[in-house]
């Protein structure tokens, strides 16, 4: 079995693993980055440009129904976990760069309130946010919100008509005493040709399908590219980690075993291991790799590995605004569907009926691949006109609330189902609780209020939230390997290092102690960058 030696082995190349490989190699450490998937070339292996009908035949032949290519829809893993309870799902993309290839780019700083229960403060992470925003090339406006602090931004991208009309409605509600803010989105997409180091965005709206000109930040186009340039990075694509190996003392990690696409196994022996496999796969590997000194799984003396699972969840409400019927929507793709964000809800004063906060992503893009409104009764000439009017003049509000963390939500192993390497598949347990339903009901009411006071009609609303109509955000899982000061209630210390195993670090979003309403990726990158620098310091001091 071939065996290589390095300073640090990083497993997983998504937002967390990519930045870790960069920070470690930049500091001079020899790093091996292990990624289960292949490397895809933007513009060649994925390219949604062109007429959908021109893509049709080639795509149907490959077994895809959607004529417009999408890296995520085409390549996402299926049947790789067992769902228990209220329809949990998991968006998992096995390619170099992971989910960073098709994310919307939403980059919102967590604020001081959000770090209240964390072992680190906003002030400690703020410098890493700034560095992350510079590297990721985040655009945005300075909004002056205390709990979503402004960052280092390139030129912001303005709201469309539908979003602008919602903003006016929010201003009216604020005058009536409601506490909320409506701002433009902040995304990791360069807009400023004077400052940009990647290709500047040309507003085709394909961000979630995979940016074919590589404008949007991915792990591949920025940190992994920079890490390769240091000469300190060895990249193993198509290589799946199958085992974590312990050293002779049994107290520390010695390396990992992997299998490549041809079925050949190999070992990477490393001074330290960074797991960045995602919030479902990282606890899975820790739980599976039981060792004599770790009978409950690696780093799991507290029993907290796989616990504290949380994500975002919500529902969608759509409005129709008669005053927008005749607008020209011809160039409205922008940076994908959501240009607006309703935020600052319940930061200052918690809602009496539920714990936690939510935000609402607001969009009014008119992309034929994604009609905002489809279910219009009827047919024929009048129906044809009506569908067009409703689409041009719609705005959609997609709620994103923090799921209450509870003993009912966790990840464990399904011993009855194993992958082809013999590793049990993960099980995701999700049960919505009264708090989740109460929050969703408030979200629905708030969105309907905004649409009506904006002069719109509620075109679609679920009305009431139920366990059956709530939608989980399957891309936003966090919390399963959380950081904390107390080794009894957490897995990692404030530096992302295992309380128990000094040379084990975690670089994905599973480390989040608690979860606010904001999107996870920017914070994942900032935390993983900080973790990696702590790893370098500790390794120089002989503490790993």
């Amino acid at each position: 079995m071939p065996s290589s030696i390095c300073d640090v082995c990083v497993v997983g190349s998504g937002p967390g693993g990519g930045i870790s490989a960069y920070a470690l190699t930049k500091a001079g450490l020899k790093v091996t980055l292990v990624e289960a998937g292949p490397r895809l070339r933007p513009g060649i292996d994925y390219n949604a440009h062109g007429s959908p009908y021109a893509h049709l035949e080639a795509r149907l032949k490959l077994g895809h129904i959607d004529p417009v290519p999408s890296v995520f829809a085409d390549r996402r893993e299926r049947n790789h976990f067992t769902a228990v309870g209220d329809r949990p799902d998991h968006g998992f993309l096995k390619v170099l760069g992971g989910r960073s290839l098709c994310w919307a780019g939403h980059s919102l700083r967590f604020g001081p309130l959000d770090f209240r229960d964390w072992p680190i403060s906003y002030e400690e992470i703020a410098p890493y946010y700034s560095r992350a925003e510079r590297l990721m090339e985040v655009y945005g406006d300075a909004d002056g919100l205390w709990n979503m602090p402004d960052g280092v931004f390139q030129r912001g991208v303005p709201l469309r008509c539908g979003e602008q009309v919602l903003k006016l409605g929010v201003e009216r509600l604020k005058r009536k005493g409601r506490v909320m803010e409506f701002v433009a989105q902040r995304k990791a997409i360069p807009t400023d040709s004077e400052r940009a180091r990647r290709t500047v965005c040309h507003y085709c709206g394909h961000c979630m399908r995979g940016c074919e000109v590589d404008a949007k930040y991915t792990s591949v186009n920025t940190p992994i590219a920079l890490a390769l340039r240091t000469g300190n990075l060895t990249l193993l694509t198509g290589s799946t980690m199958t085992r974590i190996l312990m050293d002779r003392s049994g107290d520390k990690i010695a390396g990992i075993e992997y299998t490549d696409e041809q079925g050949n196994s190999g070992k990477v022996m490393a001074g330290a291991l960074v797991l960045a496999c995602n919030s479902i796969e990282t606890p899975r590997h820790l739980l599976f790799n039981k060792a004599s000194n770790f009978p409950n799984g690696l780093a799991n003396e507290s029993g907290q590995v796989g616990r504290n699972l949380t994500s975002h969840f919500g529902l969608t409400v759509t409005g129709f605004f008669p005053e927008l019927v005749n607008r020209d929507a011809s160039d409205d793709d922008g940076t994908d569907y959501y240009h607006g964000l309703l935020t600052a809800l319940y930061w200052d004063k918690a809602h009496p009926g539920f714990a936690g906060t939510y935000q609402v992503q607001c969009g009014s893009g008119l992309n034929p691949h994604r009609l905002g409104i489809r279910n219009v009764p009827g047919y024929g000439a009048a129906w044809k006109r009506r569908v067009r009017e409703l689409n041009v003049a719609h705005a959609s509000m997609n709620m994103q609330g923090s799921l209450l963390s509870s003993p009912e939500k966790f990840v464990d192993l399904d011993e009855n189902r194993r992958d082809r390497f013999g590793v049990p598949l993960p099980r995701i347990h999700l049960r919505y609780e009264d708090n989740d339903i109460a929050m969703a009901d408030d979200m629905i009411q708030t969105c309907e209020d905004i649409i009506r006071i904006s002069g719109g009609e509620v075109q679609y609303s679920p009305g009431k939230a139920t366990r059956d109509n709530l939608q989980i955000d399957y891309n936003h899982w966090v919390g399963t390997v959380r950081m904390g000061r107390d080794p009894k209630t957490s897995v990692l210390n404030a530096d992302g290092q295992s309380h128990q195993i000094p040379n084990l670090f975690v670089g994905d979003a599973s480390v989040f102690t608690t979860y606010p309403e904001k999107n996870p990726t920017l914070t994942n990158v900032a935390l993983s960058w900080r973790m990696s620098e702590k790893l370098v310091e500790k390794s120089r001091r002989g503490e790993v």
Partner: protein
Amino acid sequence: MDRRDLFKILGVGLMVGADGLAEDEHPASNTLPLDLAGYRPRFFSVQEYEALKQLCDLIMPSDDASPGASEAGVPVYIDSLLFYSKPDFQQLWHAGLEQVQAVAHTRFDQPFHECHTEEQEQIVKDMAANEEDPQTPLQTFFRPLKDLTLTGYCLSDAGMRQYLGYRGDRAVKDFPGCTHPQHKA
């Protein structure tokens, strides 16, 4: 925007393949031009296909601004999709069109595509009568037929450009967003 700006926007990696690119087009890869005019059905029989074309046009007719579904290529889209689909989906569509033909035979003594326009309209009216809660096999077929007609139409060049007025796939240097003062105050 001049050509050089466009290349700056599209990125160095694409310059090689982008030779001869019109100012506002995106380069596409892995595409095959679809011959809408010369298309022969691969899934439906010639008769079924004729009925499908007329059904699509009754749902999505032509008007002053844009062509009807069949001119836009929607039957090509539907037939191609079904040709590559799983058997249960194919079965649903075969059964649906059989229903349409059976009803046309019972009521007007000829296949749907040979009925007069008024007769066809009567059949479609019956199909759509209980859209939210279909009561007959004919009515059950209406929703899938209508959904795929709408999807196919909006993805067609004519549907995208002429019907929706969509030009969002242009490479633009700046995103203007909403420019209407009345939406801002």
